[in-house]
């Protein structure tokens, strides 16, 4: 991303704490100014001391001013950093909240394997990267501007020639710096680009390492990685290598010994010409060596600053994902019926996954969606809880378009059991109560019993208070029954089941079927069926192919007619085919 976009994103993100940052910048500037005070003070002290009969009171007063100036300066710098750290702290907290809020509001279609990594990066690393920018960079910058200006002004006030003397060596480094930075923008773009390739190569290298090792292709990903890092390293090194000698040589112009020698040589010459007094030179020497240090500190934080800008860009990107639109005048569904009307949908807006789907599911019936993978059955089911919005047509619940139902109410009508069980980090009871935090203990236990998981929970070390993944180590099948109990407790009149047995242990499959059957009772149920055997007595079986309904009816009817259902049924029951094979072997 370009620097400009990063900078803009950053400004927008930091607006809420800009007051604190501004305060920090002013304090930092004052702190930097007072850093000059001891040097000015020392000069005055010397003036007061180096007279034939020093005025002790004046000497002590100046000394006290110097000490107090020091304390004040340090206090201001400290306060500046405290303000900016406070700003950073608040910014991080508010950004994290904003991210969570956004994460809850975006369409589910936005989520994928890739984005969970992106979210992790944003909440962990990117926020950390912002720290340097908010908490340190601006204060440093303020100091780097205020201190040289004030120092030069002070020297001008004594004698303009001293100011010239103090910055005499600067042009050497400035010219070299300008020469080194020529074409900086282009170089940075090139480097960013090859750095992006390095990142991609690393991801592919580490994620694919199992495949790579298993198929003896160690060279393949490794080579892509080596190519990417080699190109980056060569480009970067090729750019900086010729500059290093120049950098090492010219940066000496700003080093303490060189400035001292130049100042003293020039100063002694000026004293000889009668332009200045020895104590004026004394002041110049003290001030001249301090000024360049702040500039160099700033130069060195460029890497951290670039990193922060990139981080800000990514955070901004996350925060500007469009949320799922909300209804202005929400309506309440009248019953538990589900109706699809001429539904069309594409994940990417182009390749239709569903096209012209019309389907009515009456309350208290069970509808099974079947079809080969990629037929669109999971997508169709996911439109009911409005995980995605349709592109064409509409989905109605109880007569109301799902887009007109308040999202806060929708989940009380539609429950969803996923194929891959998602348990959260927390106690078993927390997990069960996810949909109804106020459910009573009795209700919770009743749901667990109905899902055939109560006995297992009671056998855990701390029963319902056992923490998932810690002392509640559950098998896949058990986790599934837990998720079914959770669904029972949520008690929604409409239920969408992604047939939950695919990952189950064979041993618990029968129990899961029991649990599912008790869940299905008296509700409008839509099942995404992977195994036809479990849904043969569904009220209706809907066969999907390439996003369209191609067959529709009861098991016996569908099996009786030549069509895709019969082919699926035969493909799904290969037991008969394997038996002879076994005899052959």
């Amino acid at each position, binding site marked *: 991303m370009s620097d400009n976009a990063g900078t803009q994103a950053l400004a927008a993100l930091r607006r809420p704490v800009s007051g604190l940052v501004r305060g920090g910048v002013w304090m930092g500037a004052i702190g930097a100014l007072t850093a000059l005070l001891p040097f000015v003070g020392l000069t005055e*002290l*010397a003036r007061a001391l*180096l007279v034939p009969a*020093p005025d002790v009171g004046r*000497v002590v007063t100046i000394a006290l001013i110097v000490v107090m100036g020091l304390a004040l*300066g340090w206090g201001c710098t*400290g306060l500046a*950093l405290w303000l900016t*750290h406070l700003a950073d702290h608040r910014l991080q*907290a508010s950004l*994290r909240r904003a991210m*969570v809020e956004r994460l809850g509001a975006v369409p589910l279609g936005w989520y994928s394997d890739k984005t969970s990594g992106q*979210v*992790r990066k944003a909440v*962990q690393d990117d926020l950390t990267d912002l720290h340097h920018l908010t*908490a*340190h960079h601006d204060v440093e910058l303020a100091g780097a501007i205020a201190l040289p200006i004030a120092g030069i002004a002070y020297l001008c006030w004594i004698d303009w020639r001293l100011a010239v003397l103090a910055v005499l060596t600067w042009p050497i480094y400035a010219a070299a710096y300008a020469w080194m930075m020529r074409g900086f923008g282009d170089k940075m773009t090139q480097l960013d680009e090859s750095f992006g390739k390095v990142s991609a190569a690393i991801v592919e290298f580490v994620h694919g*390492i199992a*495949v790579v090792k298993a*198929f003896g292709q160690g060279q393949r990903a490794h080579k892509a990685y080596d190519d990417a*890092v080699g190109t*980056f*390293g060569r480009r970067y*090194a090729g750019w900086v290598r010729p500059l*290093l000698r120049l*950098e*090492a040589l010219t940066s000496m112009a700003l080093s303490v*010994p*060189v400035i*001292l020698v130049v100042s*003293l040589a020039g100063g*002694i010459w000026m*004293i000889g010409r009668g332009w200045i007094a020895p104590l004026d*030179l004394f002041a110049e*020497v003290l001030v001249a060596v*301090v000024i360049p240090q702040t500039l160099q500190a700033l130069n060195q934080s460029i*890497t951290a600053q670039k990193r922060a800008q990139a981080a800000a860009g990514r955070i901004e990107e996350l925060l500007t994902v469009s949320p799922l639109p909300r209804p202005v005048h929400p309506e309440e569904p009248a019953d538990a019926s589900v109706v699809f009307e001429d539904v069309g949908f594409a994940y990417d807006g182009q390749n239709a996954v569903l096209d012209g789907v019309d389907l009515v599911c009456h309350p*208290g019936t069970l509808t099974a969606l079947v079809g080969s993978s990629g037929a669109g059955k999971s997508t169709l089911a996911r439109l009911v*809880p409005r995980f995605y919005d349709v592109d064409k047509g509409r989905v109605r619940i109880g007569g109301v378009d799902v887009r007109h139902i308040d999202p806060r109410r929708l989940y009380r009508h539609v429950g969803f059991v996923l194929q891959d069980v998602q348990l959260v*980090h927390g106690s078993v009871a927390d997990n069960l109560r*996810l*949909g109804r935090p106020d459910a009573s203990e009795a209700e919770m236990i009743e749901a667990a019993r109905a899902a055939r998981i109560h006995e297992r929970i009671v056998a855990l070390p701390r029963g319902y208070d056992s923490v998932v993944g810690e002392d509640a*180590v559950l098998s896949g*099948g058990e986790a599934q029954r837990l998720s079914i109990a959770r669904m029972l407790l949520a008690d929604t009149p409409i239920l969408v089941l992604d047939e939950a047995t695919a990952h189950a242990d064979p*041993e618990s*499959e029968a129990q899961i*079927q029991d649990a599912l059957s008790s869940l*299905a009772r*008296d509700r409008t*149920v839509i099942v995404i069926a992977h195994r036809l055997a*479990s849904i043969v007595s*569904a*009220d209706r079986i809907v066969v999907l192919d390439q996003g369209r309904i191609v067959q529709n009816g009861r098991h016996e009817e569908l099996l009786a007619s030549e069509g895709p259902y019969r082919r699926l049924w035969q*493909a*799904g029951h*290969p037991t008969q085919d*394997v*038996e002879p*094979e076994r005899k052959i*072997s």
Partner: protein
Amino acid sequence: MLGELKQVLGPAQHGRLYRYLAWLCAWSVLEALTVVLLVPLLGALLHGDFDQAWRWLLAMAGMTAVTCVARYIQSMRGFALALVILETLHGRLGDHVARLPLGWFSSEKVGRLSRSATSGTMMATNLFAHLLAPVVSGVLVPAVIALAMLWLDWRLGVTALLCSPLIYVAHRWAADAIARNDDVVDGAAAIASNRVVEFARNQHTFCAFGRTEEGYAPLEAAIDAQRVAGGSMLAQTFPRILAGGLSVQLAFAVLVAVGLWSALHGSIDPVRLVALLALAARFVGPLAEAAAHSGLVRIAENDLRRLADILATPPLPEPATPRAATEPGLVEFDAVSFAYRDGEPVVGGIDLRFPPRSMTAIVGASGSGKSTLLKLVMRFFDVGSGQVRVGGVDVREQDGAALMAQLAPVMQDVYLFDDTLEANIRIGRPDASDAEWREAARLAGVEEIADRLPEAWTTRVGEGGSALSGGERQRVSLARALLKKAPVVLLDEATAALDAENERFVQEAVVRLRRDATLIVIAHQLPTVMAADRIVVLDGGRIAESGTHDELIALDGRYAAFWHERRRAKGWRLTAKAVS
């Protein structure tokens, strides 16, 4: 930190690192000594002795020249090391990571690794190029100046030396508080981040249960806890950091006070005092400068530590003289036990023999150790005790590539490269003929996927295979295994059998594979189990039963129970009305 610098640079560079550090120290000492010459020079100047002043200036110019040479050498050496990092660290990281046991690669580690390998290496580069020098000289220069003061004026010298422990203690006090609070803050940050990621990853569930609308209490609590931890860190550490900085200023104030007191009592020449105070100002300056870099140094230290940690992770030991497999297709477990964490064995006392061209089905509940057995065959981990032999030779005595050449895995996590469908299948055997890979693809059911895709076989599958569904990725993985024609095939059926179609392809592939290969299958489907020559039932990491289907049914033990349960499950009919 030195240890981490050495780790990150690699053993070949230790000498250069030491020489760099030596030059860095030499430069700092020389610079301090140059600055010390200010005292006689300013003394002469303020006394009006210009000849003397010019002589001292000449001496200073000479010292400056020497300092500049030292500075140039240390800069160039620092730059050279930075270039070493830039050009070799990525490669060394890659080589090292490639030798780590596959068991090391958790998703958390992988995320950290990519970050370390990208921005972490840049920070390490910057450390040598720019950061280390001001920090080292920021501490060394004042130390040398303090010692020099002792020689120039014992009162101020003693004062400076007495102040040093004070400064040290104050900074230590602040640093300890920061470190202590850092742990608390990091802990709270990790919990909050995990909650946010959990929230993102389980979005379907949170959405389905209304948590995205009404808020999820643990997440909010975690964010709040992090805010509180950060706030208390600021409250606790800032006074100390202020005190640490103040101690430096205080030292300067004490030097001024002691000097003035001496001057006013006539025990020190005022001119000399003024010159000494100028030196005292240089005593304080570098310290403040070092402190100004502390923020960046902390970032660099963290990056450096992460990089060093990765490089310090012991790789899987490779045998010095690898042995070649003697009996292709034979896999044996000899009294094998293994634990991910000490004291919590996952499998124990495993004795198994998988003869060439046999088919074995492994069944058991999740957590019984089924996939661990397959991972031990592939040497994702090394056994705790006992021996795993593939092709008649202990896996630890074989070259890693030679071991993998004998194995074709079809595992749960399938990774596809962001390349064409064809290239992803060809990974199985790059020199396979067109006819061969097409045949493997057909058998595994990838042909149907290609038919549906816009550019058929040349369609790119996206990063990690994101353009394909889970079942489709599995089929590609199956095609790779078929193409590889390895003597041993390891198949985890769990996810391969996502739906009826996949199940059919798996069955067909099994029939095909067992003709030429030893087949070890983690079986979930009855047809697969029944097709096996032998069934091994695992329970709690141990072999509970083993034998043919008929033998185990006759035994009427765990397998028989499993069989009957499965028959019942097959017989279930999910219906809204007619359930008991």
